[in-house]
């Protein structure tokens, strides 16, 4: 039986990959249900990467496959340049992860739980227990039993467990769950500080606002497929353009615009006209709208470009919006 050490396998990493996580054609089935359907995911190093999707989209399944908690049916993947599962031990030595709700031995203290996990890691991990507890802000409760911890404290303990291995890559599945607003703020700051240290953080979350504030890039997964991925700024730039027009006669203004070839989705609301334009619409079109209205005798008080939010964009590209429509 193999007794390979990390030192043995450290030279087996083919290249210093630019991707922290790389998957190709990753597929996982549970009977008839296809949880992952040929997933192609590329997570760059040194960034906070949001991993978004509706319930049942396959987010946690992908994380579990990446971490070797379950086996993939097809496809290939690598973590930090190591082929997984071939060099799983070497890869996971540099990875910290929370998957689903963080659960621990309730009859042990937080410190004792971390001692168990540190013992399974490299010898130096034991020395990182106190700094990790301090960093997540539960050092003062480290000697209390975990059964007395709140959900938020367990989340923090889960993050502390991730930090034991001094990881290059952290995979956090819903780390904001159970945290109060101040805790969420602290968690966000901590994630950003981890990224500032050169680590990569993959953040799976339903809290789109938090992801937008924390992450540099995102991937959207739906029904087992990655349907979009990239830097948030680029993705939102590709979202439809929203204009809000406050004018003297919104109904007549709508009629004027309907008669043009602008082809915009126009709605009259309490704030005036809402105009949706396709992504990539030239800015000249905005000026043309203003000209048509003014020449038609409409007084335009305000014409504002509304910044697309990640939430609106997320809903526009996932099946949830389609279902609700």
């Amino acid at each position, binding site marked *: 039986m193999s*007794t*390979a*050490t*990390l*030192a*043995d396998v*450290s030279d087996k990493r083919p290249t*210093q990959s*630019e991707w922290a996580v790389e998957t190709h054609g990753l597929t996982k089935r549970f009977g008839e249900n296809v949880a992952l359907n040929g997933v192609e995911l*590329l997570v*760059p*190093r*040194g960034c906070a990467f949001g991993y978004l999707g509706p319930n049942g989209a396959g987010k946690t399944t992908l994380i579990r496959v990446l*971490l*070797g*908690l*379950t*086996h993939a049916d097809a496809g290939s993947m690598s973590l930090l340049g190591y082929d997984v599962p071939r060099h799983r*031990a*070497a890869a*996971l*030595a*540099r*990875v*910290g*992860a929370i*998957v*689903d*709700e*963080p*659960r*621990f*031995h*309730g*009859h*042990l203290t937080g410190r*004792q739980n971390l*001692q*168990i*996990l*540190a*013992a*399974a*890691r*490299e*010898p*130096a991990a034991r020395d990182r227990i106190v700094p990790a507890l301090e960093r997540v802000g539960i050092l003062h409760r480290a000697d209390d039993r975990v059964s007395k911890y709140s959900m938020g404290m367990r989340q923090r303990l889960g993050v502390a*467990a991730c930090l034991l*291995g001094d*990881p*290059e890559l952290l995979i956090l599945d819903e780390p904001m769950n159970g945290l109060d607003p101040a805790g969420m703020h602290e968690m966000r700051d901590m994630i950003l500080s981890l990224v500032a*240290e*050169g*680590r*990569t953080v993959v953040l799976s979350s339903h809290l789109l606002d938090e992801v937008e504030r924390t992450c540099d*890039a995102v991937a959207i997964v739906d029904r087992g497929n*990655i349907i*979009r*991925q990239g830097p948030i700024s*680029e993705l939102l730039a590709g979202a439809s353009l929203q204009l809000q027009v406050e004018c003297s006669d919104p109904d007549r203004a709508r009629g004027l615009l309907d008669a043009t070839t602008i082809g915009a989705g126009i709605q009259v609301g309490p704030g005036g006209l809402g105009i949706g334009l396709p992504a990539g619409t030239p800015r000249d079109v905005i000026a043309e709208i203003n000209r048509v209205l003014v020449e038609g005798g409409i007084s335009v008080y305000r014409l504002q470009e509304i910044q697309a939010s990640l939430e609106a964009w997320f809903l526009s590209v996932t099946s949830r919006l389609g279902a609700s429509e």
Partner: protein
Amino acid sequence: MTTVIDVDAPVPALAPAGGPADHRGSWIPNGGMIATRILELRKRRGLMIALALVTIGIPTVFMVIRLLMHAFAPKTYGPAGGYDIYTNLVSGVLYVFGFIVAATLGATAGSSDLTDGMFRHLVVTGRSRLALYLARIPAGLAIIVPLVAAGFTLVCIVCVFAAPTRLEFNGVTVPANLSRPGLETWAAGHPNEVICQFGVRITPSTPDGSTIGNVTNSLCGGPPGAPVTQPPQAQITEVARLIAGMNYSDYSRHFLYPSNSLMIKSGLWLELEAAIGFIVGLGLGSLIGQRTVTVVLMIVLEIILTPIFSRAHIPHLLNLQRGVVGVAMAHLTPGGLPVIGGGGGGPGGGGPGGNPALIPETITVSVCVIVAWLVVWSALGAWRMVTRDA
């Protein structure tokens, strides 16, 4: 549509994890893993209290009650210790309960990470799952072996130091540990008790059979109509010596307290039984992933199946019966202890010279069965641990 992310400049590399001392892919658990596994089990207060109560508490309560009863009413209640108490406690209490508590500990060790949600954290460390499994074996044994040893030591101490000072042999109080001449000399001084109560079977080949018969009839009352004549005192004494000599081999198997040899053998036998209970419980617990079901199955095996399979001679299932670990352990019962479930003492089981109540099985087969149980259940538990979705 998939958009490839534009990556900025490479990030500074962090210090690599691991190192020459990090044998994370190895299947051999390190000392820290074993130590923390002991910690995890030891901190289960309810379980530890239950284990201590059963292995130490039950014998203690039994001994204390007997000590008190003997102290307050020595004529009614015998001493707390002694050979008989020892054999009953070792084979009746420590053996059965030791197995069950060891199995409970094993089932807990095999399933607690799963039920508590820690298994996932451990797998994510990259540590070999086989090493995670194997770390539990020395950890659990480090707990159960001392517990059983403590209970057993307590029994030994009380049985030796609170043993009766005189031996009851066929209803006669006799000094213990006499040699054959010593017993014959003692018999000469107590001819009536020896002749009437020791008993002897007279056959045509028995030397001086007629003399013994006559003396016995005259002193103890013979069959109706038999002539009763008072034999001379010298003849009575001689017959008492003869009867004592004939009973010596039986007498020599009665002890005031267990011998050192028996205690050592019994201790090792109990520890082996506890180790089997733990390792089988661990494997089954890991395989099933639940503690309660595992414990119930182990109790059924020990309390119900083993006694049945030990004694019922089912012709077509004889080899299956031999394959039950409890049957194999019964065949390894140290000489001087009663075989589990009753049926008298003696090693060797139902083989030639063994216990006729047990199904026949050689010692070699018994050892093979025990080794097979340890290996197979460990392999099954480890296999499930390695292949299980976390």
